[in-house]
């Protein structure tokens, strides 16, 4: 190694280490960017943006029973049963939220935005069956869209779904195949909760 290369190595090392130390020292004097969720952050600013794709929520008063969301879902987690008797009634609207990949294709397909993404992301549960959401307790008439009448949702976005997840009571039975959804939606035990 020649003398020039030797001295250049020393000079380069010293200068670049000096500059690097100046950069880190300047960052030590600045405010950290961390948001200390959940208790020490600025609650006036929203945590997630408006279009955030959180857990799915259905406002049944607006559902027209077109089943477009069921066809749009690539995984097939939505199951809707519409009974065609004397009147058209929605008897079953189930979403398996444990398998949802939050792609948003079902919300785009819905004509009235009955199914939409809420802004909730903190919904961890201790039993996965609590995430199999059943939105229909008793058969409901679907919404008939009328000309020149704007649709407005009657629920606050996110409230319904949190209530549903929290208040669902589950017996802690040994985990077996969840046959209840097929039983309820197969037409024999319409709308009964087991």
């Amino acid at each position, binding site marked *: 190694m020649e003398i020039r290369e030797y001295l250049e190595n020393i000079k380069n090392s010293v200068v670049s280490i000096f500059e690097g*130390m100046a950069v880190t020292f300047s960052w030590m*004097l600045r*405010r950290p960017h961390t948001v200390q969720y959940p208790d020490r952050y600025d609650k006036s600013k929203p945590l997630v943006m408006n279009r955030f794709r959180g857990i799915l929520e259905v406002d049944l008063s607006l559902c027209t029973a077109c089943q477009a969301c069921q066809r749009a879902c690539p995984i097939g987690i939505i199951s809707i049963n519409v009974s065609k008797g004397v009147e058209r009634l929605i008897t079953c609207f189930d979403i398996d939220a444990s398998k949802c990949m939050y792609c948003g294709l079902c919300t785009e397909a819905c004509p009235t935005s009955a199914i939409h993404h809420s802004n909730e992301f903190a919904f961890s549960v201790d039993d996965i069956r609590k995430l199999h959401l059943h939105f229909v307790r008793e058969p409901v008439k679907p919404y008939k869209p009328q000309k020149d009448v704007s649709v407005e949702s009657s629920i606050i976005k996110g409230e319904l779904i949190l209530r549903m997840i929290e208040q669902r009571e589950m017996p802690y039975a040994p985990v077996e195949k969840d046959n209840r959804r097929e039983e309820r939606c197969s037409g024999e035990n319409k709308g009964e909760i087991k």
Partner: protein
Amino acid sequence: MFEISNKILESLSISPHYSIVVVILVVFIYGLFALTFGALFAGITSWYERRIAGRMQSRIGPNRVGFQGFWQWLADGLKCWFKEDIIPKDTDSILFRIAPYLVFTGVLCTFVVIPFAPSIIGADLNVGLVYLIAITALVVAGILMAGWASNSKWTLLGGIRSAAQMISYEIPVALSLIVVVIPAGTLSLQEIIKNQGGAPYNWYIFHNPATFIAFFIYFTAALAEGNRTPFDLPEAESELVAGYNTEYSGMRFLFFLFSEWMNLYVIGAIATTVFLGGWRIPLVSYEVQSGSLLLQFAGFIIFLIKALILVNVIIWLRWTLPRLRIDQLMVMCYKYMVPISASLTVVSLLFTVLYHKVVLLQIVFKFLLFALGVFISIYFAFRVYYNIKNFPDKTYLKWMI
């Protein structure tokens, strides 16, 4: 020691044969003090390092466990203490068990010669510096044992690399300390501090150009001995998954970490003793200081502050620089540091002789080097100001978040 204890026993009218008991008691108390100081320092440094690292990376360090996260180190230590002591099956069990203790002892024994204050020192050996360099060789033995006894190829690689690194870097450490011994004329650490002056321009770092460069060489070589970034290839996470201490768990693992953090303090302490004036207070002479108890306590605090500033610089370097590869480490040691520090001893010798002949030169060089030091600090502050101006994030100087 024995004379003092004999006098004390005579005044209490006990037979002087028991003076050995007093001496052993004093030694035991000092050992306890050193151990407590070292362990506390190691624990608190781990919390402090994580906070500083967080602020440098624009995040907050631990701040939930206790006030500003202060008990984090205690929580980590207790958690590690209660962990299961796993000893893998095919290891060499005696070597595996002893290795952490050897490393810990090697670092703890250096506390004996560190002069905390004019009268607080374990034993003012008149070969203090040589003792220091010799006792840190125990650490090498411990690490080799840890690497070999863990019965894994990765740990063996890490142990051998680390041992080679530590042995090689003892040479620049020794040589750069000798650069200061030449003007001081003594190897004992208290005498070295005594021979320096109080004010900053009287410290040995500004004594002649050779000692100025020797400070940086000592600092870097001691970092390499302590296995700190940028020289921490043996324990690099992304390459060898923690090297020689992969197979350790629980308290044995913590011993390795403890000795690494205690070593930080030892590096800082030795650097301040030899280069930065130790416990000397500006404008106070040695006799006045050793007489008054208050000034001795002030000296203790000043020593602590100077050593802690250097510990800060070590932490700062860790979070700025990448790692050197093992062959680049060795190249740096044998091609750069050893020749430079060896030639620095000759230069220092020449300067010392010159200062005897022409006294005026000493004052000239002292002030020139002091001006150089001040200039470097001001230039650094200027670069920090340029960085802050160049980026829209404003300064925020509160430390409590």
